[in-house]
C-alpha cells in the first residue's frame, strides 16, 4: 500500500514540519473558492479568507512553538521536507519546505499582520462592489507570500515570488477604472520584472553550479558547506567568485521587489491601490520579501566572511541599503500625499533593513523587518482610517486637527509614528539602534553609519511634519471628519500595542531575537548596556531623533498652512524643496535616459529604413526598371510566341491536376493509400539487397 503513491519525503520531520505546506495551501484554496463566488455573497468571501488565514496563523504559531522548543532545549531546529517534483532526463527538480527560526518568525509575522489587515479591510472595502474579487486576490497573495517564506527550494520560492508579484499587480490596479492606477500597476510589474530577470539568471547559475535547487538538504543543499566551498573556488570573472556573482544576481531580484535604489520608483506609485493593500503588500510583507530573500541566501552572500571583515556582496548590499535609506528619507520630507510619505518612508526603512543585513547579519536585518512590519502596517492602516474619515482625501494639506475627531486613530498613529521615528523605548528604536550599532562597529568604512544616522534624523523630521499636518492645527478639508468603525480601529489598537512593546525582545540587555535566529542561548543582564559604545550610541541616536522631532515641531507644529500657501520648508530653501518634491527627478532621469534612448533608437531605425534601405531599394528598382524595358522589347519580339504556347500547355496540365482536387474525401484517402503502397513496396524492395 505504501508504494501506491510516488511521493516520498526525503526526511521525516515533526508533525508540524510535515504539514507545514498547509499554511500557504489554506489561503490559496480559500482564494480558489472565493474566485468561484458571485458578487452578492460578500460575507462568505471575507469569512472564507479570514478563516483560512486564521487557521494558518494557528499552524504558524504551532510551528513557531516547535522551533522555540527546539531552541530552548538547546539543539537547533531546521526541519526540511523535500520531494522530487519531476524528473526530466537525468536531472530532478526538487521542491520542499523548511522550518527554521527564520521562516518561523516570518510565518508568524505574515499571518498575524495579514489577519489584522484582512479584518481591517472588511471595514475599509465595505462599500466596494468588487469586494469578493478583492478578498480573492488578498488571500491568494497571503498564500503565495507564505509560500515564499517556507520555500526550501529556490524554484518554489521563485514561483511563489512571481505569484506575489502578480497579485501585487492585480491589487495595485484593483481600481483599474482609474488610469493612474492602471499605469501604476503596469509600472510596478515591469520595474520588478527588471529585478526578477537577474534573479532568474541567478537561479539558473546557482542550479548550474550546485546541481540542486534545494537550500538545505542534509549537507547537499546549495546553502550548505559543500556547495558553498565549490562556489567560492569557482571563478566568475571580474575577480568575483561564483558565490558573490550569484548572490549579487539574486540581490538584484530583492532590489526590485523591495524597492531599493535604483528600482524604487514603482513603490510610491503603488499607493494607487486600496490602503489595506498598501499596508499588507507594500509595507509589511511583500516588499519585505526582498529582504527575506537576502536573509535566506545570506550564507551565499557571506561565503568566505572573515570576522570583522566583509565580502563584496555584503558591502554592495550595505551601500545600496544605506543610500536608499537616506535618499528615500530626503524625498519623503517633501511629499504632500499622506500615503506617498509613508511609501517613501517604507523605501527608506527597507534600506535600513538591507543595510542591517549587510552590516550585522541576518538577525539585525530581520529584527528591523519584523518591528517595521508591525508599525508600518499600523501607520498605513491609520492613514487609511484618516483617508476614510476625511472622505477619500489624501493630501495632508487638506487635513489637520484630526486628533480631536479621531481619537483612536490619532493615539495609535502617534504610537506608530514614534516607533518609526525610533523614539525610545518604542519598537523601532531598538531595531534601528541594533543596525546603527553594527554600522558603527563596521570596519571597512564609517560612511554607512553617518548616512544612517542622518536618515534617522530625517525620519523623525518628516514623520513629525506629517503628524502635525494631519492631526494638529485646525481642520482644513471639506465635510466633517469622522472616526472609523470599530472593525477598523481594533486592529489598529492591537498593532499599536505591538509597535510599543515588540522591541523589548531585542534590547542590548536581552538580545533574545538575535540569539534565537543565530541559535545561541540567551540570558538577561543589565551589563548588556554597559558594553563599550552601546550606551553612547543609544544616547546619540536618541538625541538625533529628538533633534529631528523638535525640528519638525518647530517648523510645522500646531500651525496649519493652507494648501495654497507654500510649505514651511519651501519658504526656507526653495531649490532644495523643489528638488525633493520632484522626487530628486529620478523618474524624469529614467525618462530622459532609458526611455528617451528607446525613442532615439526607434527614430534611428526609422531613419535607416527611410533613407538608407529605402535609397538602396529605390536604386535597385530603377535598375530593374531599366532592365525591364530591355526585356519588354525582347519579349514582345521573341519570347511571347513560345510563352503563350507554354501557357496553354500549363493550362491543360492544371486542368488535369484540378480533376484530382475534387473535394471528395475518399479520393484523397485513395491517393494516400496508393502512396503508402508504393513507398512500402520500394522500402521492401530496397531492403532486399
Amino acid at each position, binding site marked *: 500500500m505504501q508504494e501506491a503513491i510516488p511521493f516520498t519525503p526525503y526526511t521525516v520531520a515533526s508533525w508540524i514540519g510535515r504539514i507545514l505546506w498547509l499554511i500557504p495551501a489554506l489561503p490559496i484554496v480559500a482564494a480558489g473558492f472565493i474566485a468561484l463566488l458571485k458578487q452578492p455573497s460578500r460575507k462568505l468571501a471575507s469569512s472564507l479568507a479570514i478563516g483560512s488565514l486564521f487557521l494558518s496563523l494557528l499552524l504558524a504559531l504551532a510551528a513557531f512553538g516547535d522551533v522555540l522548543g527546539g531552541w530552548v532545549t538547546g539543539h537547533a531546529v531546521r526541519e526540511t521536507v523535500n520531494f522530487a517534483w519531476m524528473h526530466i532526463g537525468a536531472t530532478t527538480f526538487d521542491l520542499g519546505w523548511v522550518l527554521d527560526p527564520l521562516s518561523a518568525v516570518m510565518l508568524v509575522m505574515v499571518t498575524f499582520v495579514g489577519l489584522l489587515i484582512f479584518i481591517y479591510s472588511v471595514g475599509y472595502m465595505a462599500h466596494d462592489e468588487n469586494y469578493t474579487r478583492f478578498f480573492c486576490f488578498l488571500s491568494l497573495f497571503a498564500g503565495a507570500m507564505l509560500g515564499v517564506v517556507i520555500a526550501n527550494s529556490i524554484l518554489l520560492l521563485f514561483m511563489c515570488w512571481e505569484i506575489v508579484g502578480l497579485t501585487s499587480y492585480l491589487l495595485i490596479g484593483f481600481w483599474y477604472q482609474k488610469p493612474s492606477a492602471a499605469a501604476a500597476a503596469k509600472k510596478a510589474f515591469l520595474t520588478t520584472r527588471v529585478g526578477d530577470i537577474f534573479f532568474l539568471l541567478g537561479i539558473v547559475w546557482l542550479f548550474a553550479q550546485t546541481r540542486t535547487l534545494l537550500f538545505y538538504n542534509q549537507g547537499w543543499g546549495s546553502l550548505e558547506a559543500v556547495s558553498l566551498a565549490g562556489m567560492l573556488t569557482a571563478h566568475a570573472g571580474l575577480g568575483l567568485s561564483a558565490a558573490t556573482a550569484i548572490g549579487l544576481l539574486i540581490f538584484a531580484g530583492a532590489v526590485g521587489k523591495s524597492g531599493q535604489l535604483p528600482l524604487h520608483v514603482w513603490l510610491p506609485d503603488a499607493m494607487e491601490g486600496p490602503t489595506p493593500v498598501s499596508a499588507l503588500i507594500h509595507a509589511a510583507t511583500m516588499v519585505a520579501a526582498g529582504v527575506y530573500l537576502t536573509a535566506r541566501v545570506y550564507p551565499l552572500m557571506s561565503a568566505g566572511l572573515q570576522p570583522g571583515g566583509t565580502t563584496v556582496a555584503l558591502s554592495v548590499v550595505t551601500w545600496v541599503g544605506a543610500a536608499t535609506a537616506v535618499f528615500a528619507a530626503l524625498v519623503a520630507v517633501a511629499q504632500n500625499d499622506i500615503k506617498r510619505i509613508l511609501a517613501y518612508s517604507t523605501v527608506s526603512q527597507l534600506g535600513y533593513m538591507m543595510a542591517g543585513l549587510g552590516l550585522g547579519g541576518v538577525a539585525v536585518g530581520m529584527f528591523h523587518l519584523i518591528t517595521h512590519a508591525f508599525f508600518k502596517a499600523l501607520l498605513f492602516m491609520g492613514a487609511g482610517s484618516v483617508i476614510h474619515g476625511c472622505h477619500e482625501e489624501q493630501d495632508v494639506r487638506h487635513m489637520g486637527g484630526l486628533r480631536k475627531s479621531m481619537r483612536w486613530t490619532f493615539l495609535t498613529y502617534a504610537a506608530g509614528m514614534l516607533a518609526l521615528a525610533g523614539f525610545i523605548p518604542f519598537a523601532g528604536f531598538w531595531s534601528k539602534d541594533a543596525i546603527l550599532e553594527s554600522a558603527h562597529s563596521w570596519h571597512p568604512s564609517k560612511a554607512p553609519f553617518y548616512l544612517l544616522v542622518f536618515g534617522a534624523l530625517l525620519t523623525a523630521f518628516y514623520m513629525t511634519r506629517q503628524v502635525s499636518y494631519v492631526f494638529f492645527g485646525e481642520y482644513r478639508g471639506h465635510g466633517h471628519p469622522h472616526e472609523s468603525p470599530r472593525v477598523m480601529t481594533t486592529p489598529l489598537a492591537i498593532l499599536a500595542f505591538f509597535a510599543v512593546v515588540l522591541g523589548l525582545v531585542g534590547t542590548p540587555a536581552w538580545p533574545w531575537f538575535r540569539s534565537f535566529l543565530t541559535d545561541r542561548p540567551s540570558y538577561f543582564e543589565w551589563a548588556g548596556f554597559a558594553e563599550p559604545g552601546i550606551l553612547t550610541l543609544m544616547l546619540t541616536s536618541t538625541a538625533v531623533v529628538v533633534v529631528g522631532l523638535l525640528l519638525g515641531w518647530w517648523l510645522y507644529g500646531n500651525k496649519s498652512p493652507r494648501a495654497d500657501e507654500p510649505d514651511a520648508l519651501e519658504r526656507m530653501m526653495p531649490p532644495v524643496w523643489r528638488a525633493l518634491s520632484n522626487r530628486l527627478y529620478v523618474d524624469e532621469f529614467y525618462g530622459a535616459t532609458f526611455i528617451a534612448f528607446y525613442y532615439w533608437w526607434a527614430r534611428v531605425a526609422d531613419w535607416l529604413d527611410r533613407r538608407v534601405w529605402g535609397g538602396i531599394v529605390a536604386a535597385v528598382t530603377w535598375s530593374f526598371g531599366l532592365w525591364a524595358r530591355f526585356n519588354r522589347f525582347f519579349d514582345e519580339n521573341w519570347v511571347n510566341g513560345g510563352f503563350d504556347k507554354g501557357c496553354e500547355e500549363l493550362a491543360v496540365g492544371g486542368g488535369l491536376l484540378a480533376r484530382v482536387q475534387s473535394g*471528395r*474525401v*475518399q479520393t484523397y*484517402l485513395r491517393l494516400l493509400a496508393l502512396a503508402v503502397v508504393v513507398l512500402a513496396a520500394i522500402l521492401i524492395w530496397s531492403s532486399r539487397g
Partner: protein
Amino acid sequence: MTPLAEYLLVAALLFAIGLAGALTRRNAILVLIGIELMLNAANLNLVAFWRYGAHPELLTGMMFAIFSIAVAAAEAAVGLGLVIAIYRHARTTDLDEINRMKG
C-alpha cells in the same frame, strides 16, 4: 510461421478491410467505422510486437496501444461530432454529395 507473423497478418487483413470500407462506402459514418478498424489493427500490431518483442518488461508497445486507444476515443468523438454538424448543414452524410470545398 511464427505466432507474431500470424498476428501481423491478421492485423494487416483487418487494416485492409478497414481501408476498403473507408474507400468504398458512401456514408460518412461508415468511413469513420473503417478508420476505427484501421486504428484497431494498428493497436493489435503494437500489442503483438510488445508481446513477442525483445523487452516486454519495458511496456513500451502496451503503453503505445493504451495511448492510441485513448487518442482513438477522442478521434471518434470529434469525428462523429463533425459528421453530425455536416449532416445538420448539408442534410446528408453521403460523401459523394459533400464535395464542396467551401461551406
